[in-house]
């Protein structure tokens, strides 16, 4: 794909602020942690490997939890959960929402009006309580959690794409393509989607961030996937340990998952802000 609007990586790096660059580096580091989790850890992440509640030290880099499970291993493997949830939701919601928004704007009429109403409805729904109820009834495994998150995040890319397509479809070359007999599908996939890809790609960063926060919030409330320990679930277990604040345990058991989650969310936010500004200066202004 040779697209005029896709800038080279080097050029994007040059246009980024220092905050965005730091965010990108931290993000890459965390992705590396998730991918290489099995090489970076020397204790199992799911069974006990030492004394319970050991403080950080030589044997256990970040200490252990109440069952003696190594915390560093849990955090490395937990990064995978965040990564899968973020990436899965962003891709599905971004692609789905983007296509829905494009079709609605391109076709117009009843479909478009129905879609806009649906988006309005999604906007006023209190998303976390709905997610809690859905996860509680459907069972909280990773697949269900991603599905619920997609259900609540497609409307954002759909709205962005709709606005973009509405302005784009009045352009001369699109009209020309139609005059020459280009079908709707041809125009959408050949002209509109490639042109708008960068904008959706950037909005996916925000979706990923939202999904990661939502997953850890649900896990924190006890609705995480029990088979794959996410950072939110570690926090949940630590907070449910009665009287944890009267002990020194929170200094590692609660602190480290908190630190990694905060780092991840903030670096995603800075990166997202920067790329939004680079991809579409008009959009950044409205923020």
């Amino acid at each position, binding site marked *: 794909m040779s697209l005029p609007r896709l800038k080279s990586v080097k050029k994007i790096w040059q246009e980024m602020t220092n905050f965005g660059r730091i965010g990108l580096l931290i993000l890459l580091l965390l992705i590396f942690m998730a991918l290489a989790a099995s090489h970076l850890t020397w204790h199992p992440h799911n069974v006990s490997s030492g004394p319970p509640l050991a403080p950080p030290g030589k044997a256990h880099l970040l200490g252990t939890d109440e069952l003696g499970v190594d915390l560093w291993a849990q955090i490395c493997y937990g990064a995978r959960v965040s990564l899968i949830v973020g990436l899965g939701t962003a891709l599905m919601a971004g692609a789905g929402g983007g296509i829905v928004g494009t079709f609605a704007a391109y076709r117009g009429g009843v479909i478009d009006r129905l879609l806009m*109403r649906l988006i*309005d*409805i999604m*906007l*006023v*729904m*209190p*998303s*976390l*309580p*709905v997610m*809690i*109820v*859905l996860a*509680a*009834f*459907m*069972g*909280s495994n990773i697949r269900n959690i991603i599905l619920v998150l997609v259900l609540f995040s497609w409307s954002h890319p759909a709205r962005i794409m709709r606005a973009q397509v509405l302005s784009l479809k009045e352009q001369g070359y699109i009209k020309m393509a139609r005059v020459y007999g280009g079908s709707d599908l041809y125009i959408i996939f050949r002209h509109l989607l490639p042109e708008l890809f960068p904008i959706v790609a950037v909005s996916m960063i925000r979706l990923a961030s939202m999904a990661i*926060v939502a997953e*850890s*919030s649900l896990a*924190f*409330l*006890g*609705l995480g996937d*029990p*088979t794959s320990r996410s950072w939110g*679930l570690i*926090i*949940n*277990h630590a*907070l*449910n340990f009665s009287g944890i*604040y009267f002990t020194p345990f*929170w200094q590692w058991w*609660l*602190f480290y998952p*908190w630190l990694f*989650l*905060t780092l991840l*969310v*903030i670096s995603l*936010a*800075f990166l997202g*802000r920067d790329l939004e500004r680079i991809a579409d200066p008009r959009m950044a202004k409205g*923020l």
Partner: protein
Amino acid sequence: MTIFEYFITLMIILTINFFLPRLMPGDPFLHLSGEAGLEFVTFTAEQREYFIAHYGLDRPMSEQYFRYLSGLLRGDLGFSYYYKADVAAIILSRIPWTLLMVTAATFFSLLLGIFLGSFSAWRREAWQDKVTYLLIVIFSEIPVFLLGIMLLIVFAAGLGLFPLSGAITPFSGYTGFALTKDILHHAMLPVIALSLTRAGGIYLLVRNSLTTILAKDYMRTARAKGLSEGRIRYRHALKNAMLPLVTRVTMQLGGMVGGVVLVENIFAYPGLGRLMQEAVFVRDYPLLQGIFLVLAFSVLTANLLADLLYRFLDPRIREI
């Protein structure tokens, strides 16, 4: 949104609520297997009978749906087997705490957002503006439950300035002024966490709209008339920036309710959010659904009222 659309939204929520327990695979009440960290819940035959009778699972679907709706109209939200009480009564007893959280957090996030937003706008591009902007952006990007945990660790566990959990000191016997002080003391950290994360959106809105307003002709006119700087800022500029705030605050309300649910759980605050988590924990489905309905209904009602208020405040859109 029109009243009709609010009605449709409400019906969608009610319908989701109706179908969820009925769409669970197999027999919903035998299927509730416990998960790691959760208490294992088995239902006795008596409980099962109650549930089947309550949901009317042996009747045709359309009749169940109708019965469900008419039950709601009578304020019947079901019976919580775990607490052995009416769901509506349990919810009513917890609502005041959540209301306190929501109103206090809305008030303080507005205050903070308006104050810092106008501060930034009047010093646009100066270092004060840049520092404020950066701080607010960082705070509003941290998820509320992470910020809440941070406040709890630093100010309650570390420095011991605030209580660790709850809404009042148990068995203290406080009355009158001492009781009020105790309640405020307990509410402080959760409200700060909520206000800080919610102030960001308001801040950006005030900052942006004030910047546009300050460039308008009537601001120059006001200056030319020789009005004092304070009068220009507060009477002319800020007043015109207030209108979009009404929409913003209510649009944020759904997110605010989500935030309250999380914050109440961090601070073990006895409101609806805490109750919701307890209901999840013991798999008390009627209670869970009741709380969900009350929260969703309140958010919708508040949005509707704000829409009406906006139409009243801004005559330009009254015709639409």
